[in-house]
Protein backbone atom coordinates (compact mmCIF):
# COMPACT_ATOMS: atom_id res chain seq x y z
CA UNK A 1 0.00 0.00 0.00
CA UNK A 2 1.12 3.51 -0.73
CA UNK A 3 0.97 6.31 1.77
CA UNK A 4 2.43 9.70 2.45
CA UNK A 5 2.95 11.19 5.90
CA UNK A 6 3.66 14.83 6.45
CA UNK A 7 4.97 14.88 9.97
CA UNK A 8 3.94 18.43 10.86
CA UNK A 9 0.56 19.94 10.16
CA UNK A 10 1.83 23.43 11.03
CA UNK A 11 5.31 24.94 10.91
CA UNK A 12 6.16 28.45 11.98
CA UNK A 13 9.50 30.14 11.21
CA UNK A 14 10.90 33.64 11.38
CA UNK A 15 11.67 35.45 8.16
CA UNK A 16 15.26 34.77 7.10
CA UNK A 17 15.56 31.48 9.02
CA UNK A 18 15.68 28.00 7.46
CA UNK A 19 12.58 26.04 6.54
CA UNK A 20 12.23 22.26 6.99
CA UNK A 21 9.00 20.49 5.99
CA UNK A 22 9.10 16.76 6.57
CA UNK A 23 7.64 14.00 4.44
CA UNK A 24 7.87 10.23 4.72
CA UNK A 25 6.40 7.82 2.23
CA UNK A 26 5.77 4.14 1.86
CA UNK A 27 5.89 2.56 -1.54
CA UNK A 28 6.62 -0.90 -2.82
CA UNK A 29 8.99 0.29 -5.51
CA UNK A 30 10.92 3.45 -6.25
CA UNK A 31 8.28 6.09 -6.68
CA UNK A 32 8.27 9.53 -8.19
CA UNK A 33 7.93 12.20 -5.51
CA UNK A 34 6.69 15.76 -5.71
CA UNK A 35 6.21 18.84 -3.57
CA UNK A 36 3.40 21.25 -4.35
CA UNK A 37 2.60 24.64 -2.84
CA UNK A 38 -0.86 26.15 -2.48
CA UNK A 39 -1.45 29.78 -1.65
CA UNK A 40 -4.85 30.75 -0.19
CA UNK A 41 -7.75 30.17 -2.57
CA UNK A 42 -5.44 29.10 -5.36
CA UNK A 43 -4.66 25.83 -7.11
CA UNK A 44 -1.56 23.76 -6.42
CA UNK A 45 1.73 24.68 -8.06
CA UNK A 46 4.58 22.23 -8.61
CA UNK A 47 7.66 23.16 -6.57
CA UNK A 48 9.93 20.27 -7.49
CA UNK A 49 9.97 16.59 -8.40
CA UNK A 50 12.16 13.53 -7.93
CA UNK A 51 12.07 10.89 -10.66
CA UNK A 52 15.06 8.60 -9.93
CA UNK A 53 17.79 10.92 -11.15
CA UNK A 54 19.82 13.03 -8.69
CA UNK A 55 18.74 12.54 -5.09
CA UNK A 56 19.04 16.26 -4.29
CA UNK A 57 16.41 18.09 -6.26
CA UNK A 58 16.27 21.83 -6.75
CA UNK A 59 12.96 23.55 -7.30
CA UNK A 60 11.53 26.98 -7.76
CA UNK A 61 11.82 29.86 -5.28
CA UNK A 62 14.97 28.46 -3.65
CA UNK A 63 13.42 25.24 -2.36
CA UNK A 64 15.23 21.90 -2.37
CA UNK A 65 14.39 18.36 -1.37
CA UNK A 66 16.53 15.31 -0.78
CA UNK A 67 15.38 11.79 -1.56
CA UNK A 68 16.67 9.34 1.06
CA UNK A 69 15.67 5.83 0.16
CA UNK A 70 17.02 4.29 3.37
CA UNK A 71 14.84 6.62 5.43
CA UNK A 72 11.94 6.69 2.93
CA UNK A 73 11.95 10.46 3.28
CA UNK A 74 11.67 13.43 0.96
CA UNK A 75 12.01 16.50 3.17
CA UNK A 76 11.64 19.99 1.74
CA UNK A 77 14.09 22.72 2.76
CA UNK A 78 14.88 26.33 2.08
CA UNK A 79 17.86 28.18 3.59
CA UNK A 80 16.05 31.45 4.27
CA UNK A 81 12.29 31.92 4.56
CA UNK A 82 10.54 34.79 2.87
CA UNK A 83 7.14 36.21 3.75
CA UNK A 84 5.82 35.06 0.38
CA UNK A 85 6.58 31.43 1.33
CA UNK A 86 3.62 31.38 3.72
CA UNK A 87 1.32 28.75 2.20
CA UNK A 88 0.19 25.14 2.39
CA UNK A 89 2.69 22.53 1.18
CA UNK A 90 1.82 19.05 -0.05
CA UNK A 91 4.08 16.06 -0.48
CA UNK A 92 2.88 13.69 -3.21
CA UNK A 93 3.97 10.19 -4.18
CA UNK A 94 3.40 8.55 -7.53
CA UNK A 95 3.98 4.78 -7.31
CA UNK A 96 5.65 2.92 -10.12
CA UNK A 97 2.41 1.19 -11.06
CA UNK A 98 -1.14 2.46 -11.29
CA UNK A 99 -2.55 5.82 -12.23
CA UNK A 100 -3.06 7.41 -8.86
CA UNK A 101 -1.02 9.97 -7.03
CA UNK A 102 -1.16 9.98 -3.22
CA UNK A 103 -1.22 13.25 -1.32
CA UNK A 104 -0.07 14.03 2.17
CA UNK A 105 -2.48 16.00 4.34
CA UNK A 106 -0.42 19.16 3.98
CA UNK A 107 1.81 21.37 6.12
CA UNK A 108 0.81 24.95 6.72
CA UNK A 109 3.85 27.22 6.80
CA UNK A 110 3.66 30.51 8.67
CA UNK A 111 6.46 33.06 8.28
CA UNK A 112 6.80 35.55 11.12
CA UNK A 113 8.18 39.00 10.24
Amino acid at each position, binding site marked *: AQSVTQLDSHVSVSEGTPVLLRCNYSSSYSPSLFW*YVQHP*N*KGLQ*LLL*KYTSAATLVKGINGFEAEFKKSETSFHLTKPSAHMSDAAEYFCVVSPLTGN*QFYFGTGTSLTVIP
Partner: protein
Amino acid sequence: DVKVTQSSRYLVKRTGEKVFLECVQDMDHENMFWYRQDPGLGLRLIYFSYDVKMKEKGDIPEGYSVSREKKERFSLILESASTNQTSMYLCASRERKRDGYTFGSGTRLTVV
Protein backbone atom coordinates in the same frame (compact mmCIF):
# COMPACT_ATOMS: atom_id res chain seq x y z
CA ASP B 1 3.30 26.38 -20.11
CA VAL B 2 0.43 23.97 -19.71
CA LYS B 3 -2.70 25.70 -18.67
CA VAL B 4 -5.63 24.12 -16.89
CA THR B 5 -8.65 26.37 -16.72
CA GLN B 6 -11.61 25.90 -14.44
CA SER B 7 -14.54 27.93 -15.61
CA SER B 8 -15.69 29.26 -12.24
CA ARG B 9 -13.71 30.38 -9.17
CA TYR B 10 -16.74 30.61 -6.90
CA LEU B 11 -20.17 29.03 -7.21
CA VAL B 12 -23.20 29.05 -4.95
CA LYS B 13 -25.90 26.48 -5.69
CA ARG B 14 -29.04 25.29 -3.97
CA THR B 15 -29.60 21.81 -2.61
CA GLY B 16 -30.98 19.52 -5.29
CA GLU B 17 -29.63 21.50 -8.23
CA LYS B 18 -27.65 19.81 -10.97
CA VAL B 19 -24.18 21.37 -11.04
CA PHE B 20 -21.57 21.28 -13.79
CA LEU B 21 -17.93 22.06 -13.10
CA GLU B 22 -15.89 22.51 -16.24
CA CYS B 23 -12.19 22.01 -16.78
CA VAL B 24 -10.19 22.60 -19.95
CA GLN B 25 -6.50 21.93 -20.61
CA ASP B 26 -4.55 23.17 -23.59
CA MET B 27 -1.64 20.72 -23.89
CA ASP B 28 -3.22 17.60 -25.32
CA HIS B 29 -2.79 15.62 -22.10
CA GLU B 30 -4.26 12.15 -21.99
CA ASN B 31 -4.97 12.10 -18.28
CA MET B 32 -7.32 14.38 -16.35
CA PHE B 33 -8.43 14.28 -12.73
CA TRP B 34 -10.99 15.77 -10.37
CA TYR B 35 -10.19 16.18 -6.68
CA ARG B 36 -12.00 17.76 -3.80
CA GLN B 37 -10.13 19.44 -1.00
CA ASP B 38 -11.48 19.77 2.53
CA PRO B 39 -9.80 21.02 5.71
CA GLY B 40 -8.24 18.17 7.64
CA LEU B 41 -8.93 15.65 4.88
CA GLY B 42 -6.49 16.86 2.23
CA LEU B 43 -7.11 16.10 -1.44
CA ARG B 44 -9.34 13.19 -2.33
CA LEU B 45 -9.69 11.80 -5.83
CA ILE B 46 -13.24 11.77 -7.19
CA TYR B 47 -12.79 10.57 -10.78
CA PHE B 48 -10.14 10.46 -13.42
CA SER B 49 -10.01 9.90 -17.16
CA TYR B 50 -7.14 8.52 -19.21
CA ASP B 51 -8.73 9.03 -22.62
CA VAL B 52 -11.79 10.44 -24.36
CA LYS B 53 -14.97 8.75 -23.14
CA MET B 54 -12.96 6.74 -20.59
CA LYS B 55 -13.39 7.26 -16.87
CA GLU B 56 -12.37 5.59 -13.65
CA LYS B 57 -13.74 6.03 -10.16
CA GLY B 58 -11.45 7.47 -7.57
CA ASP B 59 -11.76 7.21 -3.83
CA ILE B 60 -15.00 9.16 -3.36
CA PRO B 61 -17.17 8.95 -6.53
CA GLU B 62 -20.53 8.77 -4.78
CA GLY B 63 -22.81 11.63 -5.74
CA TYR B 64 -20.68 12.61 -8.72
CA SER B 65 -20.37 11.72 -12.39
CA VAL B 66 -18.03 12.90 -15.12
CA SER B 67 -17.99 13.46 -18.84
CA ARG B 68 -15.11 13.53 -21.28
CA GLU B 69 -16.38 13.98 -24.81
CA LYS B 70 -13.29 15.83 -26.03
CA LYS B 71 -9.69 15.35 -25.01
CA GLU B 72 -9.24 18.86 -23.67
CA ARG B 73 -12.40 19.01 -21.55
CA PHE B 74 -13.30 17.07 -18.41
CA SER B 75 -16.54 17.91 -16.64
CA LEU B 76 -17.59 17.03 -13.13
CA ILE B 77 -21.33 16.72 -12.55
CA LEU B 78 -23.18 16.81 -9.28
CA GLU B 79 -26.50 15.22 -10.19
CA SER B 80 -28.33 16.59 -7.12
CA ALA B 81 -26.18 18.88 -5.05
CA SER B 82 -26.13 18.41 -1.30
CA THR B 83 -24.65 20.53 1.47
CA ASN B 84 -21.94 17.92 2.15
CA GLN B 85 -20.60 18.62 -1.33
CA THR B 86 -19.61 22.14 -0.30
CA SER B 87 -15.89 22.07 -0.98
CA MET B 88 -12.98 23.27 -3.08
CA TYR B 89 -12.82 21.31 -6.35
CA LEU B 90 -9.53 21.00 -8.17
CA CYS B 91 -9.00 19.78 -11.71
CA ALA B 92 -5.61 18.50 -12.85
CA SER B 93 -4.07 17.06 -15.97
CA ARG B 94 -0.83 15.30 -16.78
CA GLU B 95 0.90 13.54 -19.61
CA ARG B 96 3.40 11.15 -18.08
CA LYS B 97 3.39 10.20 -14.40
CA ARG B 98 6.90 11.53 -13.94
CA ASP B 99 5.78 14.97 -15.06
CA GLY B 100 3.41 15.44 -12.17
CA TYR B 101 0.12 17.24 -12.31
CA THR B 102 -0.77 20.67 -13.57
CA PHE B 103 -3.66 22.01 -11.52
CA GLY B 104 -6.34 24.52 -12.26
CA SER B 105 -7.02 27.39 -9.87
CA GLY B 106 -9.91 25.57 -8.24
CA THR B 107 -13.64 26.13 -7.89
CA ARG B 108 -15.00 26.85 -4.45
CA LEU B 109 -18.52 25.45 -4.43
CA THR B 110 -21.02 26.30 -1.72
CA VAL B 111 -24.29 24.38 -1.60
CA VAL B 112 -26.99 26.06 0.46
